């Protein structure tokens, strides 16, 4: 049996302090109350109040920052001959070893979705790899789903261990910590928390109860083929996407979206040189595929949303064998026009064509 520890609620600061000795940063969910209350992951500092809620924004930034430097380029002039310029490049990845504390199973599975194209494709991404390899994921299992959750439709569940190093389950005021991966095993063995094997059955029962509270999931096995077959059905996609504003909230809040842009900043002269940046991009924007010639294969919102739904439920599965949606439901709960990706997938399944 894997290592199991118990963490009493008053022991949380000490445990986070232990984690910060092992990692350069520990990301924890904290409340941000601007004009709208939200929960986001921030680096933990002593005294910081932690909430064990599902975050408004997934912790995707731990491996794929919203903006990062791919390389710096520095140009220098030969003082004897000012036309003679040399360029030097630095491509060292910025990778802080990170622990994520209390993300949800859907978010942990999001890392697995990113892993495939970033690590298992033709070209492993060295920046992603450096961060991913030094990432430890502590996931807290969900006690129930909210009305936008559908993790169990897409291969996950309220206590899915996929993508997690340690799975935590709340039992009254304490957390049971269960090692999932070798890294999680090592960490739990190393910490001074008391053994929690005797409460494991209670955690199991809580997990089972969470599963049982979910409405039955539809069978999405046919979704990849059905959605691919619907590609040319403009009426279907128009009717499904007519409300979309192309705002991109769905892509920015998705734990499994990974489209990015690469841009240069600065001409490269000066002490710091210039930077080639990678930033999250948004396939809902018409500029995403806009070519310099003016041609745009996805000029309208309908083909753009079709591409997003197809990527998650048809083409990513075609390439990698699994959906690139973890059913976290953030795209539904944060959509200004309440577009529901579940409804689109179900409509595709129901479509006779």
């Amino acid at each position: 049996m894997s290592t199991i520890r118990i963490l009493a609620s008053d022991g949380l600061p000490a445990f986070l302090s232990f984690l910060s000795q092992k990692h350069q940063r520990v990301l924890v969910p904290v409340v941000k109350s601007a004009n709208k209350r939200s929960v986001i992951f921030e680096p933990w500092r002593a005294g910081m109040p932690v909430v064990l809620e599902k975050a408004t924004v997934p912790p995707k930034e731990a491996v794929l920052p919203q903006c990062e430097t791919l390389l710096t380029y520095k140009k220098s002039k030969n003082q004897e001959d000012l036309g003679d310029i040399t360029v030097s490049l630095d491509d060292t990845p910025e990778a802080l070893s990170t622990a994520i504390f209390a993300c949800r199973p859907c978010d942990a599975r999001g890392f697995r979705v990113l892993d495939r194209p970033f690590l298992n494709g033709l070209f492993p991404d060295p920046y992603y790899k450096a961060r991913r390899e030094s990432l430890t994921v502590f996931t807290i299992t969900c006690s129930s789903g909210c009305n936008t959750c559908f993790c169990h439709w897409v291969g996950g569940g309220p206590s899915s261990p996929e993508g997690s190093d340690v799975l935590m389950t709340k039992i009254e005021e304490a957390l049971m910590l269960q090692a999932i991966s070798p890294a999680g095993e090592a960490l739990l063995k190393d910490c001074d928390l008391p053994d929690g094997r005797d409460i494991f059955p209670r955690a199991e029962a809580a997990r089972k109860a969470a599963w049982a509270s979910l409405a039955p999931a539809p069978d999405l096995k046919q979704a990849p083929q059905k959605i691919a077959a619907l590609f040319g059905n403009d009426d279907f996609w128009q009717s499904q996407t007519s409300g979309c504003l192309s705002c991109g909230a769905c892509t920015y809040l998705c734990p499994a979206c990974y489209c990015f842009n690469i841009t240069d900043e600065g001409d490269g002269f000066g002490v710091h040189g210039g930077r080639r940046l990678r930033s999250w991009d948004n396939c809902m924007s018409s500029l995403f595929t806009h070519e310099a010639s003016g041609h745009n294969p996805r000029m309208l919102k309908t083909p753009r949303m079709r591409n997003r739904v197809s990527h998650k439920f048809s083409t990513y599965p075609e390439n990698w064998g699994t959906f690139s949606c973890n059913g976290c439901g953030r795209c539904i709960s944060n959509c200004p026009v309440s577009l529901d990706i579940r409804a689109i997938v179900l409509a595709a399944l129901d479509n006779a064509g």
Partner: protein
Amino acid sequence: MATKKTKNARAAEPLPKNAVRNCSDRPMPSGNPYKPAVATVTEVIHETAAIKTLRVVLDDPAVMAAFHYEPGQVGQLSVFGVGESTFVINSPPSQKKYLQFSVMQAGEVTAAIHRLTTGDKVGVRAPLGNFFPWRDWRGKNIFFVGGGIGIAPLRVIMLHLLERMADYGKISLLYGARSPRDMAYSYEIEGWLHNHDLDCTLCIDAPFEGWRHKVGLIPNVLLNLAPDPTNCIAVLCGPPIMIKFTLQALEKLGFLPENIVTTLEKRMKCGIGICGRCNIGGRYICIDGPVFTLKQLQALPQEL
């Protein structure tokens, strides 16, 4: 580096579903795929008002000497401080002194490339993408159809085949541009016209004083030339509208979709199949392409 004979059939077959792409059949850059090699512009050729050709040499002599690519592979050319854009390497692989890119000015990066002069530094990430399956074409006639800047990728494969003339049947080129002034490689065209191994036809859209060649849109000129589709591969590249009607003309002439080959472009950023921009369905032009047969394209969602 090494090309495996067995893998070359891949480009001629529909791409396998559920397959993690194997790329042992193509030269690839090593190390950090995002890090360009710094290169120096050694020559800038003004082709037309809108097109310039750049010859660049990778600054590291060892990297330059070891640089190997297949005809049809592309590179990400970057101007530091402006950005990157994708272009085919249009010098034949046998030519080891420099890498040649022909660039039509269209946007920000291409405008910056057009401002480059000899001695300027650029970044090169190459080679990327697949290539023309020229080994599979041995013994066949090849008919090239190029429109405008679309001649660039045809130049590299055509010169590559002309170096191996004994392995191929008749090689023909139909090259069309809006006007004689819009024809790139004008300094080479005379040689192409007089090359006994090449049947070269030129055309322009509208009559022009002193023009001795054909006048008409490429698909119409092609229909008049009526190449025999038997044992023949048609290779075309050009603007989307030219591709659309030329494909129709080729099908009318009896070319089978598996014998029609084109090379595509889309907006690209990473060039390595991740950033999500150049996909057609589940295929990415940057790693599954840019070279596709019409048969492969017909099996994909129609979203060019």
